[in-house]
């Protein structure tokens, strides 16, 4: 079974902190994605990557950056966390097939 692992299930950070959310997949997938999910807004794509060191902006990239130094790992970085970045963050990976596999999510609270 494909496994997508997010480093933390719950995270509390202070405003202005630099925050790293890590995601690791074990199926050698080319494509990886970061989403945030907020009530009433569904899943919104922040960034995605289709290869090592390659990244593309999604629909809401402002305030975020990403890093893909190794194929299996895709990191989401909040350079200076703000309260409006309190959300559920979901990582996904997808290979040459047609199915995206998701992690369990990280619920981030910025205080």
């Amino acid at each position, binding site marked *: 079974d494909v496994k997508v692992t997010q480093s933390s299930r719950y995270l509390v950070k202070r405003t202005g902190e630099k925050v790293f959310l890590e995601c690791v997949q074990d199926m050698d997938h080319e494509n990886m994605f970061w989403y945030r999910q907020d009530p009433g807004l569904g899943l919104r*794509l922040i960034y995605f990557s289709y290869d090592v060191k390659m990244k593309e902006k999604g629909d809401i990239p402002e305030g975020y950056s990403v890093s893909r130094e190794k194929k299996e790992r895709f990191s989401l970085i909040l350079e200076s966390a703000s309260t409006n970045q309190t959300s559920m963050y979901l990582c*996904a990976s997808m290979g040459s*097939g047609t*199915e*995206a*596999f*998701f992690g*369990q999510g990280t619920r981030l609270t910025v205080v």
Partner: protein
Amino acid sequence: LAKTTQPISMDSYEGQEVNITCSHNNIATNDYITWYQQFPSQGPRFIIQGYKTKVTNEVASLFIPADRKSSTLSLPRVSLSDTAVYYCLVGDMRNSGGYQKVTFGTGTKLQVIP
């Protein structure tokens, strides 16, 4: 990816068949239609995918008319455990040498009532 439109929410009684329709008027020739299911506090999971006509698996059926401008996810005899949000995605998800921007909408919140 083509824009999709789904009902925001639906209610159904246990044991009934539930049909959730998704509109995708701008679907492209190479686009597939994919449905995901999401339970609270979990990531979405793949349910079914199709290109045209009808696809059936152990979980659901997907009906796609000839013009492909809409699709209907059919859940037979729902139970309380089918209460979830269902997302319709349209796009060319195959790895054809390019990259795929996989975007979700707001989905349909299905509430199954005892």
